[in-house]
């Protein structure tokens, strides 16, 4: 009924009906209560009916107030479109878009794996964490129309890219050959696309600059890169030139040039990447100091050997990464905790289960007659000279004797006899006959030149620090493409890092380096991703010589640092010799009127 109707009396119908009001009363037969037999009297009162309700429930729809939290993601850098997938990269590599498995409907088990970017633990603000959570899975991101990849990355590489992308301080310490370069380039590429970085400085050893240039062309050909080189004035211009997304320079130029630029004019970077970051393992070195002084927001370090000698080397890397205070000396437990958060290390054993094996074999050789004579004479004379020095002896004196003896194990300088050359020639004949290729490492360029003259039937190529930088790439190209070039002679210093020589199936370590980690780096030029066949590694060790003694010392020390870098990492972290151990290679005694006593270094760790 409406209110209008209720107020209009004439509209209200009056309902009347007769009611039977008779009441029957039954009483008990005892008759105790005769009053109950009286007819009850009923009175009536007239009551006015209400024509309006006392309470009208009212409800109006109301809009629930809603608050919003918003995040606008930064606009990324735009680059010139890449070439069509059917075209080739500059090195002839066929480019294509990654094409993950098509969606398989609702069946989640058939869906391709997705690698998500996780917020780092250091991302505190909600906006920061949302930024990472909202990024697409890498597989779909890299499969997008705007990015072309030459090859589908391996799952562990996707994980590495996602890990790098989310970190301001990172040490990518994958074992050599697992693609640190590619993971870094792709992470940089995605950070640029996501607008997180705009200006990047990449520092690497000088011999590796062509390698980085090549890898950038291969993996991110749309990214403009500028290499710092040329005259001093030109370099100054390049350092400070605006609008350059990626600047590549070598360690020496970084150390030399940046300090000469007035502080207020020094370039600032969103990301500084140090390749072969073991170069700053000594925190007091000029290189380490300059690297730490570069203005930057993100600090990444790349190395396959985060610890070459002492755990303290990690402290220097952590200091560069701004995760420990200046001059901090974290203990082993703290280092392990920092490593968990800031180091990503994978070994081939863990991630490349289908990679061809590396077969190591130690070739124990007997010196030739002439070599034996020369060796024994040199050792005897050398020890006498060292003993005569008494307490004036330094590690340098001992070191010189070690070098002299090692050189004789390579070949006798007087007669040219060499047991290693004989064995090498025999092996090379077999390798060349099968069309194979081999890399040989020595610590002496002189030995390499000596070998070059004697191995001409195998068309050897030489690659060491004495070869001008511009000639190095053509040498590698010839080694790769010339079917008659069977042997590449390399020095550890120049050839051990950063080069991709996975078409070579044989590696010879003509003489031993002081640190097995460096040897591993050398071996991994061949034993790396892309290698289709087992890699045979031959270490030449002359029995009963200084080589055998050094090898024994190094082997005994290989497992010391497992605690820091975790399981499965026994083979690649190792120690080089310190002064005490170098002295220990010989039984040195100072003779005096009081008798003979052992002599050793004043500071055992001063090597």
């Amino acid at each position, binding site marked *: 009924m409406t209110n209008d109707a209720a107020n209009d009396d004439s509209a209200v119908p009056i309902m009347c009906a007769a009611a039977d009001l008779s009441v029957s009363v039954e009483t008990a037969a005892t008759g105790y209560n005769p009053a109950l037999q009286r007819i009850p009297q009923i009175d009536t009162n007239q009551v006015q009916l209400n024509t309006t309700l006392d309470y009208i429930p009212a409800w109006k729809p109301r809009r*629930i107030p809603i608050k*919003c939290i918003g995040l606008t993601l930064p606009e990324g850098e735009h680059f010139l479109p890449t070439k069509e997938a059917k075209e080739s990269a500059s090195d002839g590599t066929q480019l294509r878009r990654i*094409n*993950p498995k098509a969606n398989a409907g609702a069946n989640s088990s058939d869906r391709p794996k997705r690698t998500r970017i996780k917020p780092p633990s250091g991302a505190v603000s*909600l906006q920061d964490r949302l930024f990472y959570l909202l990024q697409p899975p890498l597989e*779909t*991101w890299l*499969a*997008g129309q705007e990015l072309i990849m030459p090859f589908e990355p391996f799952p562990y590489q996707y994980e590495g890219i996602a890990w790098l992308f989310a970190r301001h301080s990172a040490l990518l310490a994958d074992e050599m050959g697992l693609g640190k370069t590619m993971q870094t380039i792709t992470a940089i590429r995605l950070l640029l696309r996501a607008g997180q970085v705009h200006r990047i400085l990449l520092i690497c050893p000088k011999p590796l600059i062509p390698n980085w240039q090549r890898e950038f062309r291969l993996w991110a050909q749309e990214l403009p890169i500028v290499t710092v080189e040329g005259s001093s004035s030109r370099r100054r211009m390049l350092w400070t030139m605006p609008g350059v997304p990626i600047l590549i320079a070598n360690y020496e130029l970084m150390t030399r040039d940046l300090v000469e630029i007035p502080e207020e004019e020094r370039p600032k970077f969103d990301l500084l990447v140090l390749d072969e970051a073991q170069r700053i393992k000594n925190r007091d070195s000029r290189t380490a100091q300059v690297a730490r002084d570069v203005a930057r927001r993100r600090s990444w370090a790349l190395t396959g050997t985060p610890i070459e000698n002492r755990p303290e080397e990690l402290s220097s890397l952590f200091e560069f990464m701004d995760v420990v205070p200046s001059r901090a000396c974290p203990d082993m437990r703290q280092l392990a905790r920092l490593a968990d958060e800031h180091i990503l290390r994978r070994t081939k054993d863990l991630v490349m289960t289908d990679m061809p094996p590396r077969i190591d074999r130690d070739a124990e050789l007997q010196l030739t007659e002439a070599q034996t004579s020369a060796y024994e004479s040199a050792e005897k004379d050398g020890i006498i000279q060292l003993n005569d020095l008494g307490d004036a002896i330094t590690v340098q004196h001992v070191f010189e004797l070690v070098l002299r003896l090692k050189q004789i194990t390579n070949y006798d300088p007087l007669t040219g006899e060499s047991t290693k050359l004989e064995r090498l020639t025999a092996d090379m004949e077999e390798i060349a006959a099968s069309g194979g290729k081999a890399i040989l490492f020595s610590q002496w360029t002189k030995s390499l030149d000596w070998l070059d003259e004697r191995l001409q039937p195998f068309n050897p190529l030489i690659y060491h620090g004495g070869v001008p930088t511009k000639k190095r790439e053509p040498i590698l190209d010839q080694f790769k493409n010339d079917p008659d070039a069977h042997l590449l002679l390399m020095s550890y210093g120049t050839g051990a890092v950063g080069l991709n020589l996975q078409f070579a199936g044989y590696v010879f370590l003509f003489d031993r380096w002081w640190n097995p980690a460096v040897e591993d780096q050398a071996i991994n030029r061949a034993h790396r991703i892309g290698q289709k066949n087992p890699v045979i590694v031959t270490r030449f060790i002359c029995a009963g010589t200084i080589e055998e003694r050094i090898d024994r010392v190094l082997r005994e020390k290989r497992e010391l640092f497992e605690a820091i870098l975790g399981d499965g990492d026994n083979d690649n972290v190792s120690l080089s010799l310190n002064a005490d151990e170098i002295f220990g290679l010989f039984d040195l005694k100072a003779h005096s009127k009081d008798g003979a006593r052992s002599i050793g270094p004043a500071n055992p760790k001063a090597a």
Partner: protein
Amino acid sequence: MSTLEVDGRGHVGGLLVTNHTGRPLEFQCTTPVKPDRTQEILYGQSLRPWLLGELIGGTLLNRVSIKPDLVVVCDHEMLELRNHTRTPVACLDKSSSEFETTVVQSIGGRQLRFHDEHADDSAFVESRAHLVPDQADLEEPLGRVREALSETVKTVLAR
């Protein structure tokens, strides 16, 4: 666009605007929205479409500064949003038996359904299907939205 029910606190909604390759451009999410008892009684079966589609969805769509060409939802009750916006709205067809809608379009490896009263949305999507990469998965960004909502709720509740 997706929503998430928070225990005892109602629903939160999130809208992630992406480009055609799935790259995120903007994200908006709501604080928890909980209808009172009267609303639950009076809205009856229309409560969830009103809450998720009109109220949460409408708020989010108004709020974003980058207006999307198409809104993809995972809950068919959110298709109600289409009655309050000119932007086409599509629902991922996860279980067709739940749906009363009959207009279906296949894109990005998924079946999309549209509001019956806005069948033209299907033609609109079809006209722009070439912009979506073959390997795209339209459901994947909704997972990101749900993850971001969980993170937001967790952070807000911890304060």
